[in-house]
């Protein structure tokens, strides 16, 4: 990586930035899920690694959360943007060098920020935990260079049209910059009280709604038509999806604070908008499943499609939960319980991770021009991810319902803790399976880069997946 930092832009092979981002993201995924498994063990067995400040749960939890969001998910997005954006414009990445620097600065900044968080240097605001100078770093050296590279690549495209995926990419990098800067403004301007609490959740909601969800969906808009060879089912539904994301997903932030004394009208507004996030979800799922027409055998045979379509299908329960759990009628029961933890993992570890993993699998193979080292290991990865996640999701959902019942029947809290214990162990088992699968993935991709069969010119990796 270092040899290209000071090379001339023309001397850097196309796709280098994407490869670096790809491997960084996998590494962060391993770290992030490892931390998750460690934290889950602490919840299941409270005296596991105990009495040490650095390894206490309160110091580790946010490191896990931000490592997967800013390390795994966002870097996998950057990886996808670095190779999909130019591919859709029949051009090269605007600046491969900027991309390489972007990846380098991203890893440096994220490592620094997470180390500080680990030592307890935090702003005390969920999801925007980083102290303000790290926020400033992220805005200027992570978000901005990525945005410039994506925009310039779209502007210097050699097609008249811009494909749906690139609408989302171009809009997404803009929205995340705005959301990041506005959402972290309380720290820069020392805003306090309810405004600060609301902006914290405005940020947290919009990072999911205007960054993670649309970009993950955009990746699927590329992977499915590309790998199956089918045209996208409908340009119109693409419009419906894009515009409803911008309009409906950017508004329900207040539904995260239904129990706080926010203005009541704001909660009513956010609650209706919160149900309306089903509109982009319906558009997205229908468009992609209809694109699969005639190619459903690939759901079984092809590893990228297997990941992508699993992710797309998970968008259905995800949005059914997300849409309705925030209404006043249901929120009072599940708010702040394990149900929400399960939902958050359905969004990040279920829906979006499966879509990104497909993009990383596909991208690394195409750029490196090497066939996957082992299809068997890829399938192992898929099943460990899926089963591990399912165990996690089911156990936390049940734990959440127990907590909710405990809440409304005024059960002494310690009884709730006792009742939840088996599910805490199950959660740890599930999380550890995901972690194990990811180690295998890292090995598989490393071996692909080193020892994968070369793909001949003019062929695509999925075409020769079963050839020797």
């Amino acid at each position, binding site marked *: 990586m270092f040899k290209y930092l000071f090379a001339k832009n023309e001397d850097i092979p196309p796709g280098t930035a994407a490869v670096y981002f790809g491997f960084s993201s996998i590494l962060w995924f391993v770290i992030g899920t490892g931390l998750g498994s460690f934290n889950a063990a*602490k*919840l299941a067995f*409270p*005296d596991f690694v*105990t*009495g*040490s400040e650095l390894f*206490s*749960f*309160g*110091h580790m*939890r*946010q490191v896990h959360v931000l490592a997967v969001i800013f390390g795994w998910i966002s870097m996998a997005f950057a990886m996808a943007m670095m190779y999909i954006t130019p591919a859709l414009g029949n051009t090269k990445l605007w600046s491969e060098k900027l991309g390489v620097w972007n990846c380098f600065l991203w890893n440096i900044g994220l490592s620094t920020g997470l180390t500080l968080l680990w*030592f*307890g*240097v*935090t*702003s*005390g*605001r969920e999801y925007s935990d980083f102290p303000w100078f790290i926020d400033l770093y992220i805005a200027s050296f992570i978000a901005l260079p990525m945005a410039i590279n994506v925009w310039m690549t779209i502007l210097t495209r050699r097609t008249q049209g*811009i494909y749906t995926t690139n609408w989302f990419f171009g809009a997404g990098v803009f929205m995340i910059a*705005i959301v990041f800067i*506005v959402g972290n403004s309380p*720290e820069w301007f*020392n*805003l*306090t*009280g*309810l*405004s*600060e609490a*609301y902006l914290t959740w*405005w940020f947290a909601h919009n990072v999911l709604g205007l960054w993670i969800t649309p970009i993950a969906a955009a990746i699927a808009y590329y992977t499915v038509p590309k790998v199956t060879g089918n045209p996208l089912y409908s340009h119109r539904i693409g419009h419906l999806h894009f515009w409803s994301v*911008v*309009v409906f997903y*950017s*508004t329900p*932030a*207040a539904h995260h*604070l239904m*129990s706080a*004394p*926010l203005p009541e009208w*704001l909660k009513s*507004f*956010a609650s209706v908008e919160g149900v309306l996030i089903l509109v982009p979800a319906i558009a997205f799922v229908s468009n992609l499943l209809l694109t699969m027409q005639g190619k459903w055998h690939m759901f079984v045979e092809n590893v990228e499609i297997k990941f992508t379509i699993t992710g797309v299908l998970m968008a259905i329960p995800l949005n059914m939960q997300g849409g309705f759990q925030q209404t006043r009628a249901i*929120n*009072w029961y599940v*708010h*702040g319980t394990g149900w929400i933890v399960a939902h958050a993992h359905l969004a990040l570890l279920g829906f979006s991770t499966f879509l990104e993993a497909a993009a990383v699998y596909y991208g690394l193979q195409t750029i490196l021009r090497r066939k996957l080292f082992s299809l068997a290991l890829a399938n192992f990865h898929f099943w460990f991810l899926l089963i591990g996640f399912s165990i996690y999701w089911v156990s936390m959902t049940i734990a959440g319902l127990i907590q909710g019942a405990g*809440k*409304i*029947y*005024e059960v002494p*809290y*310690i009884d709730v*803790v*006792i009742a939840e*214990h088996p599910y*805490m162990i199950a959660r740890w088992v599930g999380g550890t399976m995901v972690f194990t699968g990811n180690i295998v993935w890292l090995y598989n991709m490393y071996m692909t880069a080193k020892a994968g069969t070369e793909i001949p010119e003019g062929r695509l990796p999925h075409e020769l997946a079963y050839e020797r």
Partner: protein
Amino acid sequence: MAFREYKIGARLFGVALGGSMVITLYFPTVNMTSVAVTEIGLKKQLSYGRISGFSYEDPFLRGEGKPKTVMLDTDPKTGAQIDPIEAYVYEAGVPFPSGINHPRTLGPGVTQLSVDKGMIGEANKGAGAVFVVSRGTSQGETVTYIENASATRGWQPSDVLTTAGDANTKLVGSGKIMFVREGCWWCHTLLPEQTQDWQYFGIPPRLGDFNGESPTAFGSDRKAPDLLHVGSRNSSKEWMMMHFFNPRLVQPHSIMPRYDYLWGEKDASGKSIDFAAWRTAYTEYQKGKTVYPPEVPDYAADSEIRYLIDFVLSLK
């Protein structure tokens, strides 16, 4: 917009995102900034200080540069008996909370009383100041406001601390830092939710209860009891000590981590705490070899656990 007309699309995008931000950011801000702070809100911001996360004065979140909360029953200037009053002592150099720096954030009525009668404009960070919460009338209604007791009553920070004594001094501001740094709020919320939760954990916070507090640390993922009113349910310092040192001492089924490391190296009498020996003794007790668990050491006056317990017990 017909096929591939990106200029129109980009403008529409701007309108859509801008419109959404006007509704979700501008409109609520108008409502939220027009709220007058309540007595709870005043007490919270005065006892927590400027900020309870990362800040210049306390970059490593050690609880430095925070105000002290003291209970006074004698006037530190005249020595006369007074009704017990809570005073917030900002020693020289300790940054003032939002309400002193930006009185506008206190909300209608309170701002005016604090500036006119409370003389908060005369508070000087270099010299330090002592604040109390007082009652006054604004437009026929009783409101609480901040009084700069250094200006109105001539109370000096050092005098107030000497008069009150260490036993009556609570390091609540530093304790909130511990609460944030140690991630207590990842499991303990500070926000009783709608419905039956209120019966169990008490009255929910109200609109003006947060002005000047940052971060609010509501928490979102409750794995343990809500703590907004924990000081009213359990005010025993000894229970808290045992519970923080090893939660399983008082609650065998607790999944809370041990916070024994907050005791630091020395106990109250200046002796080194032998954690290894304590754990060995505790293991013996767990195995049933001894009848009683080992004694939890008394904490030193400047230990982090003191900050945290002072904060938790202040949550009435």
